[in-house]
Structures are given as structure tokens and as C-alpha cells.
């Protein structure tokens, strides 16, 4: 498809397990962003990639969170030893480049930690 694709759309897992979320950006978009949206809350910026590099990882909530992007395309967000407070919708977006280009969002992964 032409849009940002995220998988899985829903994930239910037990506390303490690791999860991996995937984002496939729009073809040709060099910038990729990860956000978290908790129930009833706004968007919390986590990390962004320009190409394969992430200039600033300070938005990640804890060291249990990591993200990578290879080949300038697909990105994965990994949460280790999940906690109940990690339950949220994780949204990915991409744009042609950083610096005042609109971000186009995927439909998100709804993560539920039991």
C-alpha cells in the first residue's frame, strides 16, 4: 500500500515478556518517527530516525525501550520486560525529510500488557 504500515495492529502479552513492533514507512520517506499514545492522553514523542540514525534517544521512556532502522526503511521498536504501564497505542509516522514536512501516520499498534 501507499501509506505507513504497522504490525501487529494489536498485541496482548504478559508482563515481563519482550515485544517487537514494526513500522514500514512510505517509500522514499527518509524520516521515521515513533510516538506513544496512552488512553485519553496526547501523543508522546519517543524517537525519530533520519535515514538509519537516531540523533536523539532521550525521548525513550526507559532503557527497556530500544529502536532501530535498517536499510533506511523498516523500523522496529522493542520493549523488553514489559510492564503494565507500557500499555498504549504505539504510532509510527514518516515524512520526506525532517524539517517542516508533514508526518504521515500509520494506524498504530495497540499494546496491552496483562
Amino acid at each position: 500500500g501507499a501509506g505507513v504500515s504497522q504490525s501487529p495492529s494489536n498485541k496482548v502479552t504478559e508482563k515481563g515478556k519482550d515485544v517487537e513492533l514494526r513500522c514500514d514507512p512510505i517509500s522514499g520517506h527518509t524520516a521515521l518517527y515513533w510516538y506513544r499514545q496512552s488512553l485519553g492522553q496526547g501523543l508522546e514523542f519517543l524517537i525519530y530516525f533520519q535515514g538509519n540514525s537516531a540523533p536523539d534517544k532521550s525521548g525513550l521512556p526507559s532503557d527497556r525501550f530500544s529502536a532501530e532502522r535498517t536499510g533506511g526503511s523498516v523500523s522496529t521498536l522493542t520493549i523488553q520486560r514489559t510492564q503494565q504501564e507500557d500499555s498504549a497505542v504505539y504510532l509510527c509516522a514518516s515524512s520526506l525529510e525532517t524539517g517542516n514536512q508533514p508526518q504521515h501516520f500509520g494506524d498504530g499498534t495497540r499494546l496491552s500488557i496483562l
Partner: protein
Amino acid sequence: SQELEQSPQSLIVQEGKNLTINCTSSKTLYGLYWYKQKYGEGLIFLMMLQKGGEEKSHEKITAKLDEKKQQSSLHITASQPSHAGIYLCGAQYNFNKFYFGSGTKLNVKP
């Protein structure tokens, strides 16, 4: 985020009525975006404003950015039930950080 304040937090209007949503920044914006989100879905890009005093329209939705580039308003004319959803403003201030407002939940009563 504290950088972007949206008001009101929620809004219920009768179909056919006009409405305005505001987004105020604590700092001068580099650029501002408006998005719409429906429950369980991603964000749909509406408009981007970059220049002070800029105004853009799409169908019945108009967005403006003030001259100082610290406040934006989104105006919907003759609202329809299809306009219902959560409207979010977003902005970039520096190279590495992106912020969104907490959103305005709009309900349009038929």
C-alpha cells in the same frame, strides 16, 4: 505537551454550527500541523502552516497561523457528523523534538 496548549479539550456542537479550536505555543513555532484522529485509527494530516499570518482551507476547514507564529486556530464551518473526532495540533521547535497538543474531542450532534 506543555509546549502546545489546545482549547477547548472537548466540544459538542449541533450539526450546521460553526466552531473554532485553538492551539497556543509557549515559543515561536517553526511550523505547525493540524491532524484529525478517529478512535482506534492513526492521524490524518489536514494542513501545515509555516508563515506568520498564513491561512489555508480545505473544504469546510480553515486554519490560520498568527503573525507571531505562536497561535493557530482551526475553524469548521457548517459542521457535519463526519467532522467528529479528535483534532490535534503538532509542531517542531528544534531539530530533534516534535510535540503535539493534547487534542480537542469534537462531537457533532445530528
